[in-house]
């Protein structure tokens, strides 16, 4: 039985650092939490054929991504004794240096939060139908490849 309804993980553009601070702040009332683990993806200014990446433009197959994320969420909640789990991914254009992925887990003791966070990042990169288009200097582009 599914206990949670699918959440929208997508945000238009970069995820502001202040939003991350505010998300952390909101957990101060949950006094059973002893550990938070956070992963952030930041757009890197890689060089492609001598041209620098200036931004990544993200697109998704949204309904499938949210359905898949819901399944991932359920399985991670089942596997680890975590209190909270939050995932945000950018859509649209995110300039280099800005945050495009925010994964946040919390638990009573540290191991569950860090293991769940690591596993979530792997699932998100491998399983969510999201595509990044690396926009290069001078209007050219290259499709991002995950490794």
């Amino acid at each position, binding site marked *: 039985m599914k206990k949670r309804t699918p959440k929208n993980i997508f945000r238009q553009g970069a995820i502001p650092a202040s939003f991350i601070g505010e998300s952390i702040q909101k957990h101060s009332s949950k006094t059973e939490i002893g550990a938070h683990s956070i992963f952030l*993806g930041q757009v890197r200014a890689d060089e492609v054929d001598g041209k620098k990446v200036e931004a990544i433009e*993200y*697109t*998704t*197959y949204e*309904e*499938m991504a949210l*359905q*898949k994320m819901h399944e991932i969420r359920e399985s991670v909640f089942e596997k680890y004794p975590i209190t909270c789990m939050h995932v945000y*991914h950018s859509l649209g254009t995110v300039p280099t240096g800005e945050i*495009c*992925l925010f994964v946040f887990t919390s638990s009573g003791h540290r191991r569950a939060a860090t293991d769940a966070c690591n596993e979530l*990042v792997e699932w*998100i*990169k*491998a*399983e*969510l*139908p*999201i*595509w*990044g*288009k690396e926009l290069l200097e001078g209007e050219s582009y290259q*499709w*991002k*490849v*995950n490794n």
Partner: protein
Amino acid sequence: MMKILVFGQLTDIFKGSFIRLKDIPDTDTMIRKLEEKYPALKKMKYLIAIDKEIVKENTTLGEESEVSLLPPFSGG
């Protein structure tokens, strides 16, 4: 007419986010027809999803099937 959703680098080949095809009873026929019309597709790596579930073998398509072609994911 069936609408096939395409994403990522496939939008370069199909010049858009979807394509319409008719008379495609199954996924093998769909790929054969698409490759005839868009030879560049032969070199591409992608998965096929029907109703948001990935299928690996030839699968019958119905009128209502939501078919999509998904190049390798690169989120995060």
